[in-house]
């Protein structure tokens, strides 16, 4: 087990190192940063001083080492736009994104599992047909367009919910959260639903497939023969066995929810790090782009590592191979 963990950790470390290299080389391809840093009427001396100040006159490998050194010390440079450490700005925006992603994940569980169970238990019901067609739509609908439709229907036509922003927030553990106020919750509903749409379909289909596989098995038949109520079978036998793959998928997909929040945040003007990266790309705020990519890569490596560890704990067969 420990040898496995060590190898896995080493692999994660190599992935992070490779990504720093890719991001660093990639960012050096982007247009000349000197143009954005120096005003048009600067003289040659000022130009050279700025280039030297940012270390842009050194060879690329030396710049990379300096970048790595900074990264280890938690310094990824100052944002050109905000004139503050890029990492600090990202960490300020992160709670909003995590809140949105968590809300979407919870929605996908609350909606996906009951619908999937129903479809699995009653495969021939017309309601199931309806649910399954809906889930195909959930896969095919372009997420950003659904977001626009949600705004059009619920914000513009019906006027029930706000079209963007976080609304009123309340502080908890030194961070502002929307879900603690009624107004904040109202702002959270549409973006969370938009982000959850694809995951609802995914959870639904997974639960249905698992249910269809488990129901004909002997232990369910035994439980029925014992005279257990359908309720008890559902909760004690069926649901418990379904939860392992469902939790795995939800865990694995959490990273992708965070990544896709880039789109949702842009539509609903949700001030998280997704909207931040899009804005930063538009104005070529290089330190910001680098900081975001590094944080998100780290997030993914950690998520994948955790899921792999969970796997070995839950399923002893994996440990052997």
């Amino acid at each position: 087990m420990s040898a496995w963990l060590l190898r896995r950790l080493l692999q994660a470390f190599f992935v992070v190192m490779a990504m720093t290299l890719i991001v660093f080389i990639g960012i050096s391809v982007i247009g000349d940063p000197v143009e954005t840093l120096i005003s048009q009427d600067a003289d040659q001396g000022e130009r050279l001083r700025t280039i030297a100040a940012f270390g842009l006159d050194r060879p690329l490998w030396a710049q990379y080492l300096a970048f790595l050194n900074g990264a280890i010390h938690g310094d990824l440079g100052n944002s050109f736009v905000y004139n503050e450490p890029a990492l600090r700005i990202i960490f300020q925006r992160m709670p909003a994104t995590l809140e949105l992603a968590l809300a979407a994940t919870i929605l996908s569980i609350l909606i996906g599992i009951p619908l999937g169970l129903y479809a699995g238990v009653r495969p021939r019901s017309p309601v199931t047909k309806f649910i399954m067609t809906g889930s195909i739509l959930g896969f095919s609908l372009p997420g950003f367009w659904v977001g626009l439709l949600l705004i059009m229907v619920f914000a513009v036509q019906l006027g029930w919910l706000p079209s963007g922003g976080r609304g009123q927030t309340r502080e908890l553990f030194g961070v502002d959260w929307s879900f603690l106020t009624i107004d904040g919750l109202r702002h959270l509903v549409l973006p969370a639903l938009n982000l959850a749409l694809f995951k609802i379909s995914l959870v639904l289909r997974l639960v249905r497939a698992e249910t269809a596989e488990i129901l004909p098995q002997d232990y369910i038949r035994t439980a029925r023969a014992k005279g257990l109520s359908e309720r008890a079978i559902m909760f004690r036998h069926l649901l418990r066995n379904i939860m392992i793959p469902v939790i795995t998928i939800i865990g694995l997909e959490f990273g992708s929810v965070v990544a896709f929040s880039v789109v949702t945040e842009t539509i609903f003007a949700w001030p998280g790090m997704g909207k931040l990266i899009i804005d930063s790309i538009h104005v070529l705020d290089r330190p910001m782009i680098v900081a975001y990519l590094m944080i998100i890569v780290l997030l993914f490596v950690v998520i994948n590592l955790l899921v792999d560890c969970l796997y070995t704990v839950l399923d002893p067969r994996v440990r052997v191979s």
Partner: protein
Amino acid sequence: MSTAPIVGAAPRPGAFRRFLSAFRSSGVAMTGLVLLVAIVLAALLAPWIAPQDPYDLTQLDILDGRLPPGSVSATGMTYWLGTDDQGRDMLSAILYGLRISLFVGVTSALAAATVGAILGLVAAYAGGRLESALMRLVDLQLSFPTILIALMILAFLGKGIANVVLALVIVEWAAYARTARASALIESRKEYIEAATAMGASSGRILFRHLLPNCLTPLLVIGTVQVARAIALEATLSFLGLGVPVTEPSLGMLIANGYQYMLSGKFWISFYPGVALLLTVMAINMVGDHLRDVLNPRRGE
């Protein structure tokens, strides 16, 4: 995509006809196919069937800006789907946008399939270090969401049709490589490969004349789904302003342009390009889903 490879991959003569009749058995798939053919034709024939050339500024009248669907212009032309902020007929803009969306989707899928299939076949055939290195890379890439990788590449390269295609190829090749390797591993254990090796055929010949044709079926199946995904991803990227340039608006770009007018109730500028996008993606998925069922070798005959 040509149908010839399916015939080549077929185990017996007449299999193509059986495939056709099996494909026809699904009403959903046939609806999808008809829809898809109509969409592709509309895109190809856009310059001839569109009511106006949406990018010829002399044909646009800014006074006709943001007219609702069904309005009639001063010259007597009916804007069936309304106009955008510059007085452009949305129906024409959608037809032209469809061209760009389909072009990007199909080109990137073909290029990714070529790169992915070659790398997958080589990995399966070569084995050893090369195989494990390539497959590690595939696993690694598939563990990151597609949008993130595309976002990163476009952040580095900037927008433009060629850059979007490149980003989509880099995003998609891994799925093809994994499929190609998996089916090549199965095929390479079969006797005809052994026979070809025994006859002294070169590696290149075995790879491309024997293995490749027999791995085409699964590649075709994921290829259809990947085209749909590529089109949707391109639309998303263009919506975010990172995809195609303003001068060559795809469907995603059209939706982005109408976004600001949504809040004032002028829904049609964003709504109808979205419908076109949805129909395209759904038609491809409907065909692809059934194609997978029909071509699945495990399916009982």
